[in-house]
């Protein structure tokens, strides 16, 4: 396959960026999108040019490192991660636009790499349980109803890639935050922090400068793990319940 790529190039966080056009040839339809970019980078290195910087790690669709908005879609045209997107989803002679995640909470570091540490700070605000750790407990020590376990697992699938933020017209992190909250709030292990978790994580999400939810539904369409839009509804329900239950101010001044 022969392709024309228009890639966002930006030297560093402070530099002005722009789309640059490249031609790549000899692309196999079995290559992943990242392998196609590797091919481009090999050529760029041989030509003595700066290779395109992009995030990647496991390349198995499970770590959440890869990103890229491809032709306007977070993770491209298929409902999967960019590393699991294959070139067979494109046609010979196509022009493909490649851009970084766009959100003020995800500043561009270089080219297609954005800083997603805002997600880490949302997790730090309550995305954990204060249960004693150590050896794994006996599986049946804490009974969990099957529907609750399924609900928790569905949300636990979130890999924190940030596609929801990239796709949201408001740069909101509602789907990510709701997945993390729902995953723990429905389980007995997460019960002790049920109220503080939702109040603190939503407050941390707001503090990071993410936008609000307008129920456009773009996040759930882009999510490679299929976290449903109803996840946000469940989070809202948890948040309203917590505001009624907790009498203290949910986020004391830092």
């Amino acid at each position, binding site marked *: 396959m022969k392709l024309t790529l228009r890639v966002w190039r930006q030297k560093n966080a402070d530099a002005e960026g722009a789309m640059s056009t490249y031609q790549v040839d000899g692309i196999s339809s079995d290559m992943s999108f990242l392998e196609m970019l590797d091919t481009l980078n090999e050529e760029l290195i041989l030509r003595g040019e700066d290779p395109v910087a992009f995030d990647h790690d496991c390349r198995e669709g499970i770590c959440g490192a890869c990103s890229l908005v491809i032709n306007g879609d977070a993770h491209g045209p298929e409902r999967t991660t960019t590393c699991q997107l294959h070139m067979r989803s494109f046609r010979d002679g196509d022009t493909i636009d490649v851009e970084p995640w766009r959100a*003020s909470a995800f500043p561009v570091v270089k080219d297609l790499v954005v800083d997603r540490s805002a997600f880490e700070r949302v997790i730090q605000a309550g995305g954990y349980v204060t249960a004693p750790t150590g050896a794994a407990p006996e599986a049946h020590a804490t009974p969990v109803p099957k529907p609750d376990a399924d609900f928790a697992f569905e949300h636990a699938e979130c890999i924190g890639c940030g596609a929801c933020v990239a796709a949201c017209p408001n740069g909101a992190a509602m789907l990510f935050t709701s997945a993390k909250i729902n995953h723990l709030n429905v389980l007995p292990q997460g019960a002790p922090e049920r109220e503080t978790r939702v109040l603190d994580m939503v407050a941390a999400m707001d503090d990071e400068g993410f936008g*609000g*939810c307008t*129920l*456009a539904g*773009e996040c759930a369409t882009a999510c490679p793990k299929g976290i449903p839009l*109803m996840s946000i*509804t469940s989070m809202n329900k948890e*948040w309203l319940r917590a*505001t009624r239950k907790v009498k203290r101010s949910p986020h004391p001044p830092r």
Partner: protein
Amino acid sequence: MARAVWDSTVGKKTVMAVSGLTMLLYLIVHMAGNLKIFFGADTFNEYARWLRTVGAPFLHEEWALWLVRVVLVVAVVAHAVSAYQLSRRDLRARPDKYVHKKARASYATRTMRWGGVILGLFIVWHILDLTTGTVHPGGFQAGRPYENIVDTFSTWYGNVIYIVAMLALGLHVRHGFWSAAQTLGAGSRTRDRALKGVANVLALLLTVGFLAVPVGVMTGVVG
């Protein structure tokens, strides 16, 4: 706690949902009442007169009316202020646009903000036209809403403003009702189709119901 609710994006959306549903409830009653115009001038003007005496003798004349007005003003202001603040926040959260643009979300979803502005301006015109009579075409007659309505819808601009606003209202309710349900945590996978259905029916009913009046005047059924 109230402060924390107001400061939160989820809290502000809750304010929008509750104020929106309050206005929606009022609109359903308003639309149904409007349809009395098809029973003739006397019936309609009598109905308008009755609206001022609702709750009597327990409530003094016009108290119920003013109570509704106060609730509505609070709802409109709360809805508009939260929408403005949330929109400012949303635009700040996504300052750089994508080069490769795609038509996203439904038309109703994309027009919520401008639709809301149109509705806000419409409410101002509507009150100046038919409540205070300040910008009313022809002589405004207090206590004779039937004649006043016929005056308004006998002008081309009265019809245009009204029709545009009611189409905006339909779109706004279509996305707004369903969204409010999600914000208040009332949505669920099994209830989603029903909620979307109710949103569509409400939107259609309100738009058609309200538009029946200017169409009635234009076709000579009312006049």
